[in-house]
Each structure stands twice: as C-alpha cells, then as structure tokens.
C-alpha cells in the first residue's frame, strides 16, 4: 500500500475518530480501567508444504475456513414491523486486514418453522438492494462504528452493490453463512463488537490479524 493512498484514508478516519472523541469527552464517559485483551494469534500451521489435491480439496470443502470456530453465540429476533422472528447468530470469524475487516457469522432459526424473512431485517432503509448493509462493527478503542462499503454503478445509478452478503429469503435450523467486509480497524484494536438489528450487541469478539 502506498503511503499517498493511506494518508487520505487515515485522514478521513481521523475525522470520524475526532468526532467520536469529541462526543466521548462531552459525555465524560470513560474512567473504566478495564484492560484490553491480548491480540489473537494466527499461527503458522504446517511444517510441510507438500499437499495432495485431495488434501487441499478436503481442507477447503470440509475444514474450518472461518466458518466453524464459534467465537460467540447470541439470540435475538429479526424485526419485521410489529412482527419479530426469533433467530440465533453464531460469529465465526473477525479477521483484520491492512485495508479492511472481514466478519463471518451464521444466521439460523431457533425452531423448525423455516420462516420467510423480510428484506428489511438487516436493511431498514434500502431493502430493494436485498443485502444486509445495516450490520455494523464497533471499534470501541477508536471510538468508531463501521459499516460495510456500499456502491453505485457509475454507468447506471440503479445498480448498487455492498461489501456484504445478500439477504436470505428464508432461514432454517441448518444455518445460513453470512459475511461482510468493513473498513480497516485501528492497528491496536484487539476486540470488536458486532451490532445486528434486533440482537444484543455481541461484545468482545477477538480480532485475528492476517
């Protein structure tokens, strides 16, 4: 990454961080001395680099590729106007890269009713984009709430995209893998919270550095 590109990126982050600091100072909120957890290790794994095709396919198709190690589980409800649909979320990965942050989680029903889901449950204002753009992570140390990137086609303003998963039309007890990429975390950040509308904040999620 060139320093020129990162300079402006950091400046824009600094604006929000400064705003956050202003808000925190105004609220005189924190004299909490709670220590920060240590950063999560991502260790080198194998001494041998020689694989067979079958081993590689098994590792990708059946192994834990950020989808199996459950970091936290929370129950809540998907909101559909006055109706709420009970659901469970398992967070399986928070991975911090240099320029973005990857979060993976699984959404599943708590019973066998296999309910149809409204497009608005994680997308209150632009449901026709059929994605989960309202999910957020909170970097408390930096004082920031981060949302996935959203985009509009330069050729056709009706075409949009999100660095986040499409909205599932139904859910069952099997579980739907969902994911999103967010702006980069502060380099000192070791834990984040995940905010999903209708669910309690999932706090203290350990951040893996890649």
């Amino acid at each position: 990454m060139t320093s020129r590109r990162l300079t402006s990126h950091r400046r824009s982050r600094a604006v929000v961080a400064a705003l956050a600091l202003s808000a925190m100072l105004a609220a005189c909120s924190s004299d909490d001395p709670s220590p920060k957890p240590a950063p999560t290790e991502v260790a080198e794994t194998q001494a041998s680099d020689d694989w067979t095709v079958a081993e590689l396919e098994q590792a990708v198709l059946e192994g834990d590729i950020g989808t199996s190690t459950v970091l936290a589980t929370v129950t809540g409800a998907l909101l559909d106007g006055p109706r709420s649909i009970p659901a469970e979320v398992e967070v399986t990965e928070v991975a911090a890269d240099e320029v973005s942050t990857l979060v993976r989680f699984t959404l599943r029903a708590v019973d066998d009713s296999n309910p149809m889901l409204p497009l608005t449950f994680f997308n209150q204002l632009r449901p026709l984009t059929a994605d989960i753009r309202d999910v957020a992570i909170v970097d408390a140390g930096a004082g920031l709430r981060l949302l996935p990137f959203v985009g509009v086609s330069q050729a056709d303003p009706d075409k949009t995209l999100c660095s986040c998963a499409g909205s599932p039309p139904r859910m069952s007890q099997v579980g739907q893998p969902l994911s999103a990429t967010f702006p980069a975390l502060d380099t000192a950040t070791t834990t984040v919270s995940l905010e999903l509308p209708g669910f309690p904040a999932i706090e203290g999620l350990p951040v893996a550095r890649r």
Partner: protein
Amino acid sequence: MSPRRPARTTRALAILATAAMLLGGATATAAPGDDRALPPGGVSVDGQRIPVHGTFAYRGFQLDTNPEIRGAVHGVRRIDGGTVLYYSLGMARGQGAEKISPTWAFPNSSYPYQMSRAVDVALIDPVGLIAYRPVADPTTTFASDVTKLAGEAGALRVGWAVFPELPPGVETVQVVMPWGTAVGDVPVEDGALTPVSGEPAPRLGDGWPQTPSGAELAGADPSSRLYTLTRRTSDIAGTAAVEETTEQVAVTLDANVLFASGSADLSAEAQQVLATVAADIQARGAGEVVVAGHTDSDGSDSFNQTLSEQRAAAVLGVLQPASGAAVTFTSVGRGESEPVASNATDEGKQANRRVTVVYSVQGVS
C-alpha cells in the same frame, strides 16, 4: 485468507472468546477438531504452487437448505488489458447432490453479460473507493462459463473473471464472491498464473484457465463496470455519521445532541463536534459547503420549516469562521419534508431530527 487454526490456537481463541463473552454477556463454544490446516499463502501440490489468498462459503440463493458451496481465491493479477481473478469452488460430498447446480454456484447472468457466465463477483478497492465488476464486450463476457464450473461433489474447479485494469497504486483489493460473500483482502500481483490448462474450468492442481489477450479485451468498455463506493462510519454515540466518497463528504449530525428540544441554540457538545468538522473542511474542503436542517413531523409545517432554517444557520455560524477561505457556505431548512425514517416511531423521529453538512473534497480519498 482464513487459515484453519491449530488446536493450540483454537484453544487460545476459545479461552479469549469465553472470557470476552463472559464479560459481554454472550456465550462461547469450543471449536471442532481439525484435519490438515490450510496454511497462509498457499501450498505446493505435486510441485505446482497453489496460492490461496482467501476462502469463502455460501449457499445458492442464500437458502440454507441448499448445499453449501465453498472455495478459495488464488489470485488477483494484472494482465494485459485488465485484471484477472482466479478462484476455485466446489461442494463437499454428502449434501444430497452428486454435482453442483450451476444456479446454486452463480445467479443467472443477464444483460450486458452473456447467459450462464460467472459474473456475480466484484473487486473492491477500499482505499480508492472504487469497485469493479467483470468486463464484457457486445459478444463476449470475460468470465467462466458456469456450466463448466459446476463439477462433481468433492472436487474444486477453477474459475476466472476479468475486471478493468486497476490503477498502479492499488496493491490490495477485497474480493466479493456470489451473493455478496466476502473474502477479505487479496494482494494484487502481476502476470497470469501458470501453467495454463487446456480446460475451461480445470480441476484445482491441473493448471490454470487461459485468460483472454489484451487484443481480445480491447473491445470491452471498462468504465461501465465501475462503482463509486461510500465508506460509512460514525462515532459510537451516533452523534456524527460520515459517508464519504472520493469526491464528497456528508456528515449527518444528530440534532438531539446539537440542540435542546425545539430550540436552535447550540449545546456545548455541538461546539466540539462542529470544530472537528470545520477542521476537516479547512484541510481538504473545496467549493460550496451546504448545511441543511431537518425536523421530524411533530408540530406545524411552518414551525418545523423555521426551526430547520434556524438550526442550519446556527451550524453555519460556527463552521464558517473556522473552515478557511477556500469554501463558500449555504444553509437551507428542509423542515419535515425529507425524512430518513418513519415518523410513526420515536426512533424514526429521532433519526429525522438532524443537520447535514455536505462538502466536496480534493484529491484521492
């Protein structure tokens, strides 16, 4: 890249997670056992280097009753006339199907793309705030034929897509796979992968698909495949939300914090927040700064119109002297005419009571 973690690291993660979740009020569970873990960066298979820069998992149509599709990203590489993404995908055995259905793997492609092409992928430059979709010309879509990619269960087949050329400074992009599935950061490297296979979708380890030549890509219109991205952040309290593109910054300030109810007198908190906004305008603002006041629907139209005008003017009065001479200011009151949420709920009304500050910025964001 999502390497599987060794048992020791998994235990450490579980301990960290348990401690964190006990503090946070949620529950944590241990990880299942692992077989051979996928190392960061890639592996060698029969003497051939297989880069692995990230992994993904999704279910067709985002329905968890469909089989799970999984795969890996093997490269984002600059080639003559474009940028090629290499990935592999497949489906584990035992999911009730012998072969992947093409429509599970990718949504049906439509104009301007050919039918049955694997085009529901994107590259995202989160620093330059541009996203890229695959390129096409009037007769050719430069991406894998989905019907060739949809192989037998238990195997990974390699797919590809060509995107517009990335600017020289871009060294890392995010990859987004079908149905918005995130992969995370992937390095941008030079040159097509070798050896090249004669198959359109070779099994992983049997070489890489042939990519189109620069001459073949010359007829594609890259500009039609670009998306302007918005970075969205806010402070934790929600006092200030910032949406930023390469050209413009829009700050939405919570009027409930800036002002007392029904008043246009700025609070002490407002002075601090606005000083920060002004500093950013002074640093990189250009052209006209537009300050707009908005209210909820409580009260009469005329009262809300006047209140929104007064609040916008109050914010302008603080920003303008501190923002330098390179910009001009305009304030406007929108009253209750442009709600961003329903006025039928208290939460919606709170969101509607706001002041926005929109300004252009110079240079690459």
